[in-house]
């Protein structure tokens, strides 16, 4: 179904880079096949990138750049799909073996010139793979058998799909003016020490040619407009707040009026936060608003259901034996679906047509109706029935080996509760636990999680701020300096209810295969019990002199 007409595509729109990738792949495959330890799989991945980066601060243009480049990345596998040179060696960090070398390559010009770079990259990566294969064979002989004997590479049908190339039409001059004006608004308060307004715009064309016959070219466009403020509280805490919107089309960017309104709100909020008291350690009910709830799910369950972790003996494998086990209330489901471009009116950052292994994006159920259902899969199979093949989640940043990763992780509820009702239920929980207040978490800066066995299997969610919500009717109180910490199974068992307000958190997620774009989508979630710890604080004084002012407006 995915095999389209290659010749028709190429004839309609000749692409020198794709032709060079395909031609050199064929030549390399043939030449190396006669050698000892020939690679059984070769993949050429190229990413053509055009980036705009505009930034303003203090009411002035700070940068405006325009860059183009193409990076080539070669994967070679020596051995067989059952056991190959990418297989982890004991005592070796995944980070040590997960790098490829990058090559800048031309997208046009004499074909032999483009092919010369591909040829050099192939030679180096194949030699690296052969060396890894020899080391692996010794490693296998001297170490005990592994607990998981799943293959290293699963079969997949080749795909041929040449899509239109991405390009971004952007009025740079107009955007420079907008950002300058917005940055002036951000700089309007004397206690906002640093601030900036930025626009990043990227048009990418992803190429993949493999020795299995896959030939893909697919586009990705991504734009982010963001504003941020930074101040330092009198106690030395460095306070930064960041607001952003990710879109796939310049026409969907917020306009100047929207951004000025954001700026006013951000300044007000930053100053309020600077004066806010520090949070205290706490364990009790917490209500996450939509986007923040998405990050909670990402850190608690998301990384732990990435397929390759289920075969790595250094990993905690929290959910490896949990298929069919009830984890969440019946009303709640979680899935990851990179084929969804928009949700609740927002562009999703984890959208793509194909993953970095050339597999089409697919929905993967993680939890259905409260019951754990499965894992996110790359082409690295695991020894659990039903997970022998990729489900389109083999992802990597440029120059990294793909592994299973999240894309658009979505929490859905078939019994949505309005936010006002969730708040009421939060206070009910607080009273039941004999407390005088609960917490609402609106906004997060991100988070991280430890999935290995050596360190505690915990997560840490970095709250930008929180609200203390009192049972006695006092106004909600803003607090700062808090992180949310916990362990995955306890945290999931504490999920009580979900709201009717799906929110989107677009970001980038870093792991072994590099930083990849993600979206976490969730309605608000009420958690019966979660722990708060104090965030680290800074020690520097705020700037000693007041911010400079324009001549005639004082010192």
């Amino acid at each position, binding site marked *: 179904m995915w095999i389209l007409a290659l010749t028709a595509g190429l004839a309609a729109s000749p692409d020198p880079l794709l032709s060079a990738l395909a031609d050199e792949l064929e030549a390399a495959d043939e030449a190396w096949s006669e050698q000892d330890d020939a690679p059984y799989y070769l993949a050429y991945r190229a990413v053509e990138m055009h980036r705009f980066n505009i930034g303003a601060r203090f009411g*002035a243009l700070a940068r405006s750049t325009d860059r183009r480049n193409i990076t080539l990345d070669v994967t070679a596998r020596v051995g067989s799909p059952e056991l190959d040179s990418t297989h982890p060696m004991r005592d070796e960090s995944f980070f040590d073996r997960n790098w490829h070398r990058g090559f800048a390559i031309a997208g*046009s010009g004499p074909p032999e010139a483009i092919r010369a770079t591909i040829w050099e990259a192939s030679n180096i990566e194949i030699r690296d793979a052969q060396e890894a294969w020899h080391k692996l064979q010794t490693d296998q002989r001297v170490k005990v058998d592994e607990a998981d004997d799943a293959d290293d590479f699963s079969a997949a049908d080749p795909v041929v799909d040449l899509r239109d190339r991405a390009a971004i039409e952007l009025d740079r001059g107009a955007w420079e003016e907008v950002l300058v004006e917005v940055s002036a608004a951000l700089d309007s308060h004397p206690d906002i020490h640093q601030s900036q307004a930025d626009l990043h715009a990227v048009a990418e064309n992803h190429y993949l040619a493999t020795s299995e016959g896959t030939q893909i070219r697919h586009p990705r466009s991504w734009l982010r407009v963001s504003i941020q403020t930074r101040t330092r509280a009198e106690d030395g805490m460095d306070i930064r707040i960041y607001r952003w919107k990710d879109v796939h089309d310049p026409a969907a960017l917020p306009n100047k009026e929207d951004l000025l309104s954001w700026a006013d709100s951000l300044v007000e909020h930053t100053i309020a936060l600077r004066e806010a008291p520090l949070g205290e350690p706490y364990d009790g009910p917490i209500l996450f608003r939509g986007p923040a709830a998405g990050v909670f799910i990402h850190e608690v369950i998301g990384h732990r259901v990435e397929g390759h972790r289920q075969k790595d003996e250094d990993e905690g494998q929290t959910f490896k034996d949990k298929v069919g086990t009830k984890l969440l209330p019946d009303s709640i489901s979680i899935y990851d679906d990179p084929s969804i471009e928009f949700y609740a009116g927002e562009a999703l950052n984890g959208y793509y047509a194909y993953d970095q292994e050339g597999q089409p994006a697919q929905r993967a159920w993680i939890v259905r109706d409260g019951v754990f259902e499965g894992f996110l899969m790359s082409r690295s199979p695991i020894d659990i029935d039903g997970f022998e093949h990729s489900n389109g989640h083999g992802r990597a940043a440029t120059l990294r080996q793909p592994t299973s990763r999240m894309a658009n992780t979505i929490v859905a509820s078939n019994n949505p509760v309005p936010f006002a009702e969730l708040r009421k239920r939060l206070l009910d929980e607080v009273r039941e636990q004999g407390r005088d207040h609960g917490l609402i978490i609106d906004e997060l800066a991100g988070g991280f999680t430890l999935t290995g066995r050596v360190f505690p299997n915990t997560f840490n969610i970095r709250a930008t701020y929180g609200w203390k919500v009192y049972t006695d009717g006092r106004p909600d109180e803003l607090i700062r300096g808090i992180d949310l910490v916990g362990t995955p199974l306890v945290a999931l068992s504490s999920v009580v209810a979900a709201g009717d307000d799906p929110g989107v958190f677009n970001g980038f997620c870093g792991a072994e295969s590099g930083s990849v774009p993600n979206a976490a989508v969730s309605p608000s979630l009420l958690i019966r019990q979660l722990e708060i710890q104090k965030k680290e604080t800074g020690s520097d004084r705020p700037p000693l002199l007041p911010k*400079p002012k324009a001549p005639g407006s004082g010192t």
Partner: protein
Amino acid sequence: MIALIALAFAEDPVMAGLSAELDRSMAELSLPDSPTPYFISYRLEDGWYARVRASLGAIVEESTGPRRDLGVEVRVGSEAYDSANFQAGFRSEDGHVDRSLVIADHELAIRSDAWLATDQAYKDAVSNLSAKEAADGRRAEVDPTPDFAPGPPSEFSAPPAARPDLSRYRQIAAQISERFLEHPDIELSSVTVYGFGGRYGVMDSGGTQVQIPLSRVDITLSAQTRAPDGERITDLRKLHLRTLDTLPDLDVIATELATALEDWKRAEALDESYIGPLLVESTASPTLFRRLALPSLVGTPVPDRPSKGSRFLDIQNDSTELLGLKRRLLPIGWSVVDDPLSNPGSSAAFTHDQEGVPAQRVELVSDGIVRSHYSSRTPSKSVPQSNGHARGGLGTLLKGAPSITVVSAPRTASARKLHKTAMAITNTYGNDHYLVVRRFRDGSADTGFRLGPARQSPLQDASILLRVYGDGREELVRGATIDGLQRRSLRDIVAAGSAGTETSTWGGDPVQITAPAVLIDEVEVRPTEESAEKPPPLASPLAR
């Protein structure tokens, strides 16, 4: 003149913004119970950059845009003993900070950037002075050399240099890189053109206000080939020009590079060790002196660290290669002179150094003996004040460094005479040939960064090494490692020939070195131990 410069700076929103913030910081910056700044300096690089890389006629990468960076230096204490010249931890936080400035000519925004950088530099300086006092408190004796040299303020202003021309860069990179298509044995190649045009400015609390044009064009031709046994070589030809007005014929350079590599590919690998004379021709001798001699003439002391025995000492002092005054560096009669003003068209030339001190001619070596050092405003035991050679990064303590250096021999011999002398020495070893270095593989090397002290020779690799026989016959050799070329080897120079000039870099800044060909009476050259990788089963697409 002073009034004119002050007016020019006042009308320039960048300089006016920096000047206002410098004045305010000097007057008002303070921490409780801590010293206030006694000296603040701002250094500015302001202009437009462009970079294009092409391979075999196609553009591979390109970028261009404005760039404006500020370096801030804050000193607390006094010139006799201050917060600089001491590094307490792994990173240097001694009152030097760099920061990008907004690219708009917006005075208040410029001030705001400078405000944040100065605040950080001042806090760092106060902390560093305290750490230095604590470390010196446990020393039996503290070095009495002052930390900073006073100097009269400089005033100078010249217009900025023109922006780089991206379209011209594209044309050069594409056109020259295409030449390598004619050489199928060159497996990989590229041509990179990088340029910056704008201004360098320095102002300080002592009254210095200097603005000089900043212009450079760096062109790098890179090519790689492989011998039949798998040994690979990548060689470079680097040009560091002030502008494209002095562009040499790049076709010739590209062809020379390709031909040299093709010749190298066909050369025999060295099969046994050699001991005997080495002739370093004038195409390689400037590299020899830049790597072996000039580091010994950098007078700026390495920042001190906590003393041995302190638990705060996390890494040992950096090694210094400084050779003191009255010590012999070169044979009798040899001299080394540096004059940044001697060739105004060179990319290495400047009228004022990066501290704003007017450039000066310095006699570093005469009769083979060290007489002076390259110096900045950081005094050393040998040179108490700057001689206008401060260079380095924006947010770092500047050091004395070469600019346009000429190494001269008391007498030079013709090529024929050098050959005869070399053969006479060769005969004493019972050999029938001697070795000649026509080019060191030094293209990417830069003394700004070196791993560890120079225990091993900093020059082991020649990209063009030849055997020369008595009848003048030449044979190219590859797979050789030159052992034992050290600073000390320079005293063993037995003859000199005609001079050659190279323009390269020192810590990223262009330098121009002129030096004569030299005959060294004994070196050891051995076959390279590293085994080459198997050749690939498929020839390069360019050779198919």
